[in-house]
């Protein structure tokens, strides 16, 4: 599939949400929710295609997200750093972001819009399916005038194993 088609489709999605909702917070929330719905399924595709081994630390998981998952789906490799002593908060710095290929700046009156908030939902949904609760947000965003685009992942806790999924 053409990359342009994907990027334009995403842009059309955000534009439509902006028409549907006045507040930036609502658009961000729905982007996150959509991302969540994608993430809970995408994780299965990721596990099936990458055949990764079990991770034993949050740091390994963060590396896996940046170096394998982002590479597989968006063709980019964000750099990862741990930003707290406890070892559960990580920052992913995106040097390139294909989703904003055709976007120069946020529209007027939309200064709080997190254009790529879908990505946060995707990561959150995917982690939840492997029993990890996490908070994922944009710490910095080039579209908002920051120097870099930075996604923060905070691993909160391990979730209880879900009840039977019979096959």
């Amino acid at each position, binding site marked *: 599939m053409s990359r342009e088609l994907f990027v334009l489709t995403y842009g059309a999605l955000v534009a439509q949400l902006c028409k549907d909702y006045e507040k930036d917070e609502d658009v961000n929330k729905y982007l996150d929710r959509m991302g969540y719905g994608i993430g*809970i*399924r995408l*994780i*299965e*595709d990721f*596990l*099936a*295609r990458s*055949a990764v*081994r*079990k991770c*034993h630390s949050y740091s390994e998981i963060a590396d896996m997200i940046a170096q394998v998952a982002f590479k597989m789906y968006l063709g980019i490799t964000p750099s990862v750093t741990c930003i707290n002593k406890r070892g559960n908060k990580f920052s992913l710095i995106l040097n390139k972001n294909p989703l904003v290929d055709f976007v120069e700046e946020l529209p007027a009156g939309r200064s709080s819009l997190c254009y790529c908030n879908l990505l946060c939902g995707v990561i959150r949904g995917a982690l939840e*399916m*492997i*029993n990890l609760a996490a908070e994922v947000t944009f710490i910095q965003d080039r579209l908002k005038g920051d120097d870099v685009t930075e996604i923060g992942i905070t691993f909160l806790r391990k979730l209880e*194993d*879900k009840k*039977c*999924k*019979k*096959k």
Partner: protein
Amino acid sequence: MFGMLFSIRSFVAKMSPVDMRDGFLCFQTSKYKLHYYETPTGLRFVLTTDLGVGSARDALQHLYSNIYVGLGVKNPLCPLGEPVQSELFRSRLDAFVRALPF
């Protein structure tokens, strides 16, 4: 069956002296062999075969990647966590199992 598999899996995990890599793979009785494959997302695949069969892990992995992910997960109209209703899934699964060399 779920209770039995869950118990065996926990037992294997606890018994393993080093960090468990693949975990519980299969068990056999005098009548049949049961192969087990679990994904990190908690999906469990069970295949019962004749005693003469070796390892079915690759088959189960193929089943997961191609049939379940390809037809179940990627289909947005297929709800997760519920029994799969898709006819296409059933027929592909049936064809796959029949085509297995054992």
